[in-house]
């Protein structure tokens, strides 16, 4: 779209090129009672884009449980939800996608994704203390052009996340990366941030109090990211590269200053009425949303907005998505406090307008009113679409895996599984992230969940001399797209169950969920059906574990010319660990411990990574999940952890029990620890050794316990109805897995080499 002058007439072609339907345009005429100006048309188009208005997904999102005794700010009310963690402290967390920008410009796309989610969190008054990322790419192996492109995207995205997170000094501690060709050309970049705050530090995005000044703070406005929200609401095509101006450029240094200045200002509670970050749809969204929430109006003068490019039109100023900017509604009479603090941090803080009582968002430019729109109707009355949903004909493909012969070389199969990029160690990635800054990362990346301690100091500029009190938080992000592709409903439940299981393995109980729904074009009934079924499954999962959804993000239109991505409803889950003595990691700690399996032998190879990697195709059906049983298993595990009987715990996910056992041996910081395992008990019910080793049935955990506690641990678990049995013992430098017809054996050094070096070998290639 070429440059549009501010006095352009609105034509049907312009309406269409703004992604607005004729019906939506009629609604605009009704709201305004006249034809919109071109600036107003741009404002409506971004506010009513899928990205900002959730017009397709909103009816589905209502299915999530959002209440709970600890919920302080609910999903959808503000930039991010807030959950009470006790003793006057709370956490605010959220996950958000930057898929489309990352597809076009991976480094800046991912970097600004980090910047955006950080602002969402500190806007709430919270200090960001950790980041996590859930990433998906097409297969990176091989010599094809597609694989080379996927490698380029991976390197760019990782570099962008590192660039932004490292500079701003918030550790990137957790996340996952999975690879599947459905993501070729449309990678998923979902970024999670968590911040901590005292209850009295919660800040809301409300413009109230007629006459209160509206401040623009942070970086200057340029033409970057023009209408990025609308860009994110379209399919990616070959021409998407021409949308590169819709990708913003991030400056983490500027954001660090903005973060510190805002938190310093927020300590002056008497000076502040409301705060809102300028993310998607920049000035437009921040002004109309604060006015709408405050049941007020807002008036701004664009001539006062700090600008770094010349001759910007009102349209451009309102739609720019320049990064590192915030809107602050101050209290009249306190302007000097705002100016003084931002001057200290060398940032612009300019009064650009005021709160009004007429309910209108009024925008002036060059002495003229260029937009005058009822704020509430713009922000809240976006059309809602009840899209048709239709299950795909025939349902998910089902294959009988018995038609595929068991490979002769199962030892080689496990090595190959450990080298698969989805399973292989992600150290090549997280080495590039500063995951230790803030001196709080207790469990580093690479275990089931990261554990971070956060200080809970009394108010003041400096922490106390002598002992400091902490809370211990565990964080994980999870979703298996292959499972969701086979059955989005079970897949949605499984994503929640896996996240909760990862927390339990770390010694944590879950306190809240944030979700990132990544799907294709919702106007296709089969895609909308996936979205609906996944949401329903996740909602069931959250209810089963008693955790509220505190907010999240919906990313639709994730399609490349080759088709839609696998449905990928990512779950970010936060847990709390009551006592640091309960912190548990996945690796075996020493020789001589008993190895136990919770949750039974499982069965079926549907949805397994093994089927993809070794048998060469995706097999259905999706593994099922019994949520009540899953919860009982987690609670049983937590109980034996609390009693001090557990040395390590690791969940079985991609690659099943075989991969989980190998990871227990090789994923610790020190020398690998071998184990002697006997799985003959599982052969009779299941039939095949590959099924025993690689099925991905849910609810299963490998733990190690000192022999002296084995009997009481097993009897506690069985007493709670959790199947648990001893399957072996740790020790030696070999992993041996026995079956009735003989045993498989691997040197742990060989396993570690395959797993630890795989990603680096592929990416150097």
């Amino acid at each position: 779209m070429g440059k549009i002058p501010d006095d352009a007439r609105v034509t049907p072609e312009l309406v269409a090129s703004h992604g607005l339907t004729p019906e939506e345009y009629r609604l605009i005429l009704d709201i305004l009672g006249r034809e919109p100006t071109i600036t107003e048309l741009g404002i409506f188009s971004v506010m009513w884009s899928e990205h900002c208005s959730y017009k397709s997904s909103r009816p589905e999102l209502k299915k999530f449980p959002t209440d709970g005794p600890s919920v302080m700010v609910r999903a959808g009310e503000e930039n991010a939800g807030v959950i009470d963690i006790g003793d006057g402290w709370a956490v605010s967390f959220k996950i958000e996608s930057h898929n489309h920008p990352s597809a076009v410009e991976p480094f800046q796309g991912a970097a600004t994704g980090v910047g955006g989610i950080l602002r969402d969190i500190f806007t709430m008054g919270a200090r960001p203390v950790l980041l996590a990322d859930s990433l998906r790419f097409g297969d990176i192996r091989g010599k094809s052009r597609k694989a080379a492109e996927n490698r380029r995207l991976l390197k760019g995205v990782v570099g962008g996340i590192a660039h932004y997170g490292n500079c701003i000094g918030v550790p990137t501690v957790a996340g996952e990366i999975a690879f599947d060709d459905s993501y070729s050309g449309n990678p998923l970049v979902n970024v999670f941030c968590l911040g901590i705050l005292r209850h009295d530090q919660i800040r809301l995005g409300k413009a109230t109090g007629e006459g209160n000044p509206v401040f623009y703070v942070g970086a200057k406005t340029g033409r970057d990211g023009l209408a990025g929200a609308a860009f994110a609401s379209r399919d990616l095509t070959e021409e998407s590269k021409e949308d590169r101006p819709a990708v913003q450029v991030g400056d983490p240094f500027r954001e660090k200053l903005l973060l510190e200045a805002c938190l310093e200002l927020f300590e002056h509670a008497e000076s502040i009425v409301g705060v809102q970050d300028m993310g998607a749809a920049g000035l437009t969204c921040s002004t109309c949303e604060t006015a709408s929430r405050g049941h007020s109006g807002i008036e701004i003068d664009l001539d006062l907005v700090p600008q770094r490019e010349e001759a910007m039109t009102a349209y451009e100023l309102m739609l720019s998505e320049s990064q590192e900017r915030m809107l602050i509604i101050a209290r009249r009479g306190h302007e000097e406090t705002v100016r003084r603090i931002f001057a200290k941090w060398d940032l612009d803080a300019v009064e650009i307008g005021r709160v009004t009582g007429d309910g209108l968002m009024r925008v002036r430019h060059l002495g003229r009113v260029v937009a005058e729109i009822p704020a509430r109707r713009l922000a809240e009355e976006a059309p809602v679409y009840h899209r048709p949903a239709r299950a795909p004909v025939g349902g998910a493909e089902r294959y009988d895996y018995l038609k595929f012969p068991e490979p002769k070389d199962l030892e080689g199969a496990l090595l190959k599984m450990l080298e698969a990029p989805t399973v292989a160690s992600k150290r090549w990635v997280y080495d590039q992230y500063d995951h230790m800054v803030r001196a709080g990362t207790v469990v580093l990346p690479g275990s089931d969940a990261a554990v971070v301690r956060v200080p809970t100091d009394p108010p003041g500029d400096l922490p106390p001399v002598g002992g400091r009190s902490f809370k211990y938080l565990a964080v994980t992000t999870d979703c298996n797209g292959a499972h969701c592709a086979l059955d989005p409903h079970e897949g949605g439940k499984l994503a929640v169950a896996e996240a909760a299981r990862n927390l339990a393995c770390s010694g944590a109980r879950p306190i809240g969920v944030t979700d990132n729904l990544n799907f294709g074009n919702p106007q296709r009934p089969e895609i909308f059906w996936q979205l609906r079924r996944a949401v329903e499954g996740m909602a069931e999962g959250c209810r089963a574990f008693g955790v509220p959804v505190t907010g999240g993000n919906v990313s639709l239109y994730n399609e490349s010319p080759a088709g839609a991505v696998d449905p990928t409803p990512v779950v970010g889950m936060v847990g709390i660990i009551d006592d640091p003595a309960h912190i548990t990691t996945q690796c075996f700690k020493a020789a001589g411990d008993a190895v136990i399996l919770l949750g039974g032998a499982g069965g079926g190879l549907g949805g397994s990574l093994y089927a993809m990697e070794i048998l060469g195709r995706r097999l259905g059906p999706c593994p099922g999940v019994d949520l009540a049983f899953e919860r009982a298993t987690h609670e049983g595990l937590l109980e034996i952890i609390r009693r001090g009987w557990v040395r390590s715990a690791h969940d079985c996910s991609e690659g099943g029990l075989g991969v989980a056992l190998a990871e227990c041996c090789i994923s610790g910081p020190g020398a690998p620890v071998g184990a002697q395992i006997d799985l003959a008990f599982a052969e009779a019910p299941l039939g095949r050794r590959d099924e025993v080793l690689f099925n991905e049935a849910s609810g299963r955990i490998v733990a190690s316990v000192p022999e002296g506690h084995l009997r009481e641990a097993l009897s506690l678990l069985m007493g709670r109805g959790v199947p648990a049995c001893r399957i072996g013992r740790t020790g030696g430098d070999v992993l041996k897995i026995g079956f009735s017809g003989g045993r498989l054996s691997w040197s742990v050094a060989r396993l570690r080499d395959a797993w630890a070096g795989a990603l680096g070998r592929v990416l150097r290639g």
Partner: protein
Amino acid sequence: MKWAVLQFPGSNCDQDLIHVLRSVMGKDAAYLWHKERSLGDAEVVLVPGGFSYGDYLRCGAIARFSPVMKAVGEFASRGGFVMGICNGFQILCEAGLLPGCLIRNRELRFVCREVALRVENAGLPFTGRMKPGQVLRMPVAHGEGNYFADAETLARMERGGQVVFRYCDGTNPNGSLGDIAGVCNERGNVMGLMPHPERAAEPILGSADGRLIFEGLADAVRARRAARLSGD
């Protein structure tokens, strides 16, 4: 305030240093804003890690012009104890308080991981609690920690005991010349190192070896106070 932790725009390990000094070690430590012109009654100056001025132009290149750095230079020339960690090390090199410079890591990637450090000079205020050859474990986190100096400078530094720490056990993360991880000035009162002792000062974080540096400094401060009282 006896321990001053400098704060530049973009510093991000300042809070971690304050945490270790105050909450772990019980010291009287506070922040000192980069626009200050006086160090007050500081007995130790710590220059924290981070991305001062976003690492624009070159790491540490802009921070050295901050008003506080003039005071730090005078403090160092009077024999005051100054330690720079990571970006703080880069700033001290740019300010000319330490020899050499730090360039991009050999692999051209940021690297965050634990390394092993061998103590090369145990006769400094910073290393008074260590033995020569002792191996310490602490993390690094940097994109530009590849130490470089010309051959003549390097030879002089090696002779003069100015190489304080070396990466060992094959853990050099950045291609640093001579595996150098930390250096001091000729007088031995200014030190810079790339690894982060403040992230390795408590067992729950995996290592408490870093604490030895702060304890050594505290000993040196106490000795100096005692000498001053006795009129030396």
